[in-house]
């Protein structure tokens, strides 16, 4: 965070000396609440400037004005004690020298039991809170902040309002009341920034109340005193949004700050990844971010918090897999997380869905929608990480031929694990807890599993592996039957088993479900997104010949099928010509005994040559007529099927669209189809 710009305001404060005057330090110290939140470097510069203006440094001034008289036995009055404590405190803030803080604490402790003057109470609690940070005592830090609110802010607020109503809130005579906007700002920075700089990352949760109060019309509410750009309001906004939102841990400030911190490290690692690739610096930054996420996970007490961490961690894992795949490098990146942890967290979130148990999982204040949103986001990250990881292993298998089989198995394990996860939770009674994109991802996993063995593995798959591949392709087609290439992949796998003849028996029921699906029908009728390509696939799947084409002709080059139709039509033309000639000959024989007098029947056959010829021609006519009828059926069915088959190509683009757009409307259709099929199967089983 940047420092307060409000230090500038000090220059405009009345009564401060411009010429060299040691007593000017009194004013600088009395108004130290204006600039004490500055970062050390700026504060040091500011104190140096004041020292030059006053003609002696702050340390010299403290000695001459207060320490020397004290050594001479003089008792310091209340303002002098306060200024001495503030002076040492400023030196500590500028140099982070704990000796100065100790001196400041020793001095300000005079005000410990003092009631009354709010200025003294403010500095007492503010300084003691810093000492608590330095000592790493969160409870003490919390206590001083709560006391600061109770003993300083609460009593001053009403009075400040009154003065503000009279336009006197910044009057020189209004005393410490006018400091209230700075008190808000300083306390916000103390809780949100200084605590984190000091590494106090536990036990801060009671202070979320103060943070909420500061955000509620206090910090940033006095732009005439502290300009908006110099205020910490935007940072406070983000913290409140997090602590009150779905990425919280039941409202824990400690967790929110830890996750926020981890998010900043993550952003840095992302930046390095984008600009420098996976070099040593980037790998280190990724590890640092992972470590910060691990710390946040350690702080999480609720499932909401655990889910928030896993959502971000899985995103980071996915980014690393994608970068490794894209850049073709594979450095070791330390990431102390397992996907099983994310799946366990999902399962635990799923388990609390009933009887308001989800409220106790951290969602009491954020509500049911936030619970469902979190469970969806976690699922989506689980699915994307599995798919990214599998892609990464397959890409590596292409580069590392010696390890190809192991890498293919790693990829297939990713696909299998996602499918198991999907099958466990994507049940008809838990629709609300599964995002719609989960179904297409399940199809991608099923097909990816098959492709891993069929296309990437160096050695031949075993019989058991081929069995699994067939099963996975069938699963993929059941979930997404609109992938026309998947049908031929199924036949390829069946051919490896020598069971290509089983294709129609396996494919027909899946195709029939699409043809009979009410959900698909409604979708197409309503012209929903994808209605045209899905309609084309449905018409195709209704036709056995097209289904055969899908299974066996997918690899054919474009035009080959059209060529085969042309061949049939050509044969049909020849046969028609032959038939016409035969008819003509037979008629000739009927009229003149022989259509060709030169060709007489041989003697001794007992039949006249013309009769024998007529019989032969008649038989030939029957044969040609049969052949023509068969060819006409072939031509007719091919003329019907080929356009249907060609139309299925329009469905190819849908796959890319659904993969790229996880919120594509057509994901809804896949969910409906999946559960329609399952409920139909369940009903059939019940009837049986």
């Amino acid at each position: 965070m940047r420092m307060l710009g409000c230090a500038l305001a000090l220059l405009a404060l009345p009564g401060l000396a411009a010429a060299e005057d040691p007593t000017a330090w009194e004013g600088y110290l009395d108004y130290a609440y204006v600039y004490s939140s500055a970062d050390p470097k700026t504060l040091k510069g500011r104190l140096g400037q004041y020292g030059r203006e006053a003609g002696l440094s702050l340390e010299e001034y403290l000695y001459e004005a207060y320490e020397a008289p004290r050594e001479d036995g003089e008792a310091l009055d209340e303002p002098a004690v306060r200024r001495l404590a503030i002076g040492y405190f400023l030196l500590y803030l500028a140099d982070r020298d704990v000796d100065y803080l100790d001196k400041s604490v020793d001095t300000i402790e005079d005000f410990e039991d003092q009631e009354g003057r709010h200025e003294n109470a403010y500095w007492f609690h503010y300084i003691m809170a810093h000492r608590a940070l330095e000592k790493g005592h969160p409870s003490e830090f919390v206590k001083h902040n709560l006391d600061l609110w109770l003993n300083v802010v609460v009593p001053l607020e009403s009075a400040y309002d009154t003065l503000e109503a009279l336009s006197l809130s910044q009057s020189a005579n209004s005393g410490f009341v006018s400091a209230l906007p700075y008190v808000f700002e300083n306390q916000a920075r103390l809780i949100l920034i200084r605590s984190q700089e000091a590494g106090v990352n536990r036990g801060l949760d009671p202070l979320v109340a103060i943070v909420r109060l500061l955000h509620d019309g206090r910090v940033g509410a006095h732009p005439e005193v502290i300009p908006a750009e110099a205020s910490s309001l935007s940072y406070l906004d983000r913290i409140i949004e997090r602590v009150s939102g779905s990425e919280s841990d039941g409202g824990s400030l400690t967790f929110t700050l830890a996750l926020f911190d981890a998010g900043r490290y993550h952003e840095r690692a992302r930046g390095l990844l984008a600009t420098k690739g996976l070099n040593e610096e980037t790998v280190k930054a990724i590890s640092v971010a992972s470590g910060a996420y691990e710390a946040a996970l350690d702080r999480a007490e609720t499932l909401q918090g655990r889910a928030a961490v896993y959502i971000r961690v899985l995103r980071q894992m996915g980014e690393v897999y994608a970068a490794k795949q894209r850049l073709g490098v594979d450095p070791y990146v330390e990431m102390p997380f397992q996907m099983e942890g994310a799946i366990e967290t999902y399962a635990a979130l799923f388990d609390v869905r009933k009887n308001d148990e989800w409220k106790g999982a951290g969602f009491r204040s954020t509500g049911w929608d936030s619970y469902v949103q979190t469970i969806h986001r976690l699922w989506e990250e689980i699915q994307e990480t599995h798919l990214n990881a599998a892609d990464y292993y397959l890409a590596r298998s292409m580069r590392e031929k010696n390890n190809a089989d192991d890498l293919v198995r790693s990829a297939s394990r990713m696909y299998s694990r996602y499918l198991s996860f999907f099958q466990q939770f994507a049940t008809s009674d838990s629709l609300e807890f599964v995002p719609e994109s989960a179904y297409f991802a399940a199809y991608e996993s099923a097909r990816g599993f098959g492709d891993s063995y069929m296309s990437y593995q160096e050695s031949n798959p075993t019989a058991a592996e081929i069995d699994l591949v067939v099963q996975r392709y069938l699963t993929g087609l059941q979930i997404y039957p609109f992938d026309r290439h998947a049908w031929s992949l199924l036949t390829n796998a069946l051919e490896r088993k020598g069971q290509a003849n089983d294709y129609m028996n396996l494919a027909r029921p899946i195709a029939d479900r699409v043809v009979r699906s009410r959900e698909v029908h409604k979708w197409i009728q309503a012209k929903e997104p994808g209605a045209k390509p899905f309609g084309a696939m449905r018409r195709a799947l209704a036709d056995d010949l097209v289904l055969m084409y899908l299974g066996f002709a997918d690899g054919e080059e474009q035009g080959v099928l059209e060529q085969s139709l042309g061949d049939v039509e050509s044969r049909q033309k020849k046969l028609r010509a032959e038939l016409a000639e035969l008819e003509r000959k037979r008629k000739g024989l009927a009229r003149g005994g022989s259509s060709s007098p030169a060709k007489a029947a041989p003697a001794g056959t007992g039949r006249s040559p013309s009769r024998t010829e007529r019989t032969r021609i008649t038989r030939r006519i029957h044969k040609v007529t049969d052949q023509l009828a068969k060819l006409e059926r072939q031509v007719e069915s091919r003329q019907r099927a080929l356009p249907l088959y060609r139309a299925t190509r329009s469905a190819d683009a849908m796959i890319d669209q659904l993969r790229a757009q996880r919120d594509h409307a057509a994901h809804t259709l896949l969910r409906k189809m999946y559960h329609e099929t399952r409920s139909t199967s369940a009903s059939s089983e019940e009837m049986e």
Partner: protein
Amino acid sequence: MTIRRLSSLALLLGLAGTLALGSLGCAGAEPIDMDAAVRNEAPLGGEALVQRKHDLERAHRDLLHFHATLTSLVDRHDSRSISLFDGFLAAYLGEYLDPLLRSEWQSRHAELAGVDASLRFAKAELLIQMRYPRRVQQTIDDIERRYKGRDALLIEYPIGRQGTLGDGLEMLRDRKWKG
């Protein structure tokens, strides 16, 4: 202690229209026991009335934030934080809120009655969470006495919703032991 001084300051503003700026915020004077005087003070008007309404509204909002925080700490079973925060709340209620709620007239004043009652209910809800059933009962008794015959008054209770004072009282009685 401090609120007593501020109340008297507001009184000064409302009645005399004068302001002793030098004494503001410094609070150098000895605390004065003004309990009875505050309880029986005359209704404020003008700027002082506006300020009282503002104070009550702010206190109500603050109590809602305290409620959210305490709920969160309880949900997270953070006993150490609960203990620290309980101490703060007890002091806040005793030193600031109770004096703010002491005067009788603000419960009768048309402009303030709604926020005054809502604030009392929010306080009772906080006390339920803090497991002080006796103090909850005292608050209920106080509300019943002050708002007798005004069960239809619209208030912000239960937390985050609106309802009538009569329904709110029934809920409070039912919830008294549920902290």
